[in-house]
């Protein structure tokens, strides 16, 4: 269980994330909805240990304090992040990218099984193992990025706008995969702009605006919330 409380992030005087509290349990999908510049990426980067949090924040994973850990140690603790823009290594093959994901000590023993699991999840990667990652489509690269994160055998998986730039078909495949990741007992926290697709697969959601959480609830209640429909689902006010 990932538990976050009193989390703030500032860039100089600008406060990007303001007093955020949220939880993600294992085997659940939680989505954070927010517009550009609402602080979604800062929030994920801070949880992942790339961006320092302001003093007083609590980030714990199954009781382990993550705020003092460096990024690689956070992976070791069981939290994996797929950064925005995927961050795959284009010159390396798909296999090498995936194997790098098993760099953490916690992942080495189960490396072969984890690889098998990733390939079951994304069968199309198994045909592409020796291909240089840069030669693949955006959707396939996203699969490599998610697969690589899963190779570290995480308890919690963070995804930063995974559907960005993907075709509708790929989007469907991607969100379908998230459901199967949940079945494997992994907790998923994703930030998204594609509210419709992500709420359809998520269990719960939070609304982030100007760095603050302004609403939360089950995915179903958010889908039916008129404010959410106006802001994220593109439903015209008159139609409600």
């Amino acid at each position, binding site marked *: 269980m990932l538990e976050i409380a009193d989390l703030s992030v500032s860039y100089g005087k600008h406060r990007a994330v303001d007093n955020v509290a949220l939880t993600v349990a294992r085997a659940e999908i939680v989505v954070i909805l927010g517009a550009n510049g609402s602080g979604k990426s800062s929030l994920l980067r801070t949880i992942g240990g*790339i961006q320092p949090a302001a003093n007083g924040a609590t980030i714990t994973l199954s009781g382990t304090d993550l705020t003092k850990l460096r*990024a*690689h140690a956070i992976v070791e603790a069981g939290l994996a992040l797929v950064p925005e823009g995927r*961050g795959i290594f284009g010159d390396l093959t798909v296999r090498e990218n995936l*194997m790098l*994901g098993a760099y953490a000590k916690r992942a080495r023993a189960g490396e072969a099984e984890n690889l098998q699991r990733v390939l079951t999840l994304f069968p199309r990667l198994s045909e592409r193992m020796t291909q240089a990652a840069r030669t693949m489509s955006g959707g396939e690269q996203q699969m490599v990025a998610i697969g690589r994160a899963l190779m570290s055998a995480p308890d919690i998986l963070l995804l930063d706008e995974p559907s960005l730039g993907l075709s509708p078909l790929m989007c469907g495949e991607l969100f379908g995969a998230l459901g199967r990741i949940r079945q494997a007992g992994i907790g998923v926290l994703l930030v998204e702009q594609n509210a419709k697709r992500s709420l359809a697969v998520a269990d719960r959601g939070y609304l982030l605006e100007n760095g603050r959480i302004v609403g939360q609830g089950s995915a179903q209640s958010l889908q039916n919330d008129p404010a959410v429909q106006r802001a994220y689902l593109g439903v015209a006010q008159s139609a409600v």
Partner: protein
Amino acid sequence: MMLSLPVKLIGTAALVALLACVPMVADGYRLSLAISLLNYTVLATAWALFSGPTRYVSLATVAFFGIGVYTVAVLGEVLAWPLVLLIALGLGMFVALIVGLATLRLSGVYFVIFTFGLAELVRQLVTWFEVNITRTLGRYVFLDVTTDQIYWQLLGLTVLVFVAGILIRRSRLGLALRVIGDDETVARHIGINTTAAKVALFVLSASFMTLCGAIMAPRWSYIDPAIAFNPVTSFQVLIMALLGGVHRLYGPLLGVVPLTLLFEFLLANFPNHFSILIGIAFMLIVYAIPQGIAGLLEKLTKRKGAAS
């Protein structure tokens, strides 16, 4: 063209055996040229081991080389040879560890400047130590190490540095290092302790440089800090590695051979203009073949493959 592993192994063994015969046939001048070639091969390959994948440009080569040289100058006549080498190795690794931990968070030009400063700092420290503590500046090195033995030791070290390079490239660490150069932030995201990986490789690279200096020390009969820590060495090694290409293990070798011969020629014929000419060579190489000879060769073979 892919050769099977046994063929490669036998071929390599035959090549090394052939190279080991050089002292039996070569005259004094050719042997000293061969030693020079091996010396720079070890230094440039060791340099590229670290600086190639991480893209940290180090000018500290001579700091470690000089530590090796000076360890021999001070202890060579007191202790047995293997013990001297071991102590040099230990000292080099120790300094590399401290420096690595302190500086590998620096990036880009700051790291370059720091490593350049480091070589000077070590030189000044040694000078201070010699003047104030031992009250000598400059030492004579008379050891029972023949030129042939120096050659064979360097050949052994060359084999070792290549073996280390191959093992690293195949290991998880090698893969990690390649991606650290690409994107260090993402590397950390996927669970790589980037600092530890960089320090480990920096120390390994420095140990080869230190040993190389220690083995080379008996070549000079007189050593002072200005000779042992000559900054030109660092630049030469750098330019050789860049000319050859740092993204392949054999790359630096392709730069070592032509440049060692060129430097030899320049030193013999234009000793007074050596620095100017080496500077011009430096600029030409960086401008004309940024990917190095190895990169050039690959481009050519790829084009040929595409055409056929």
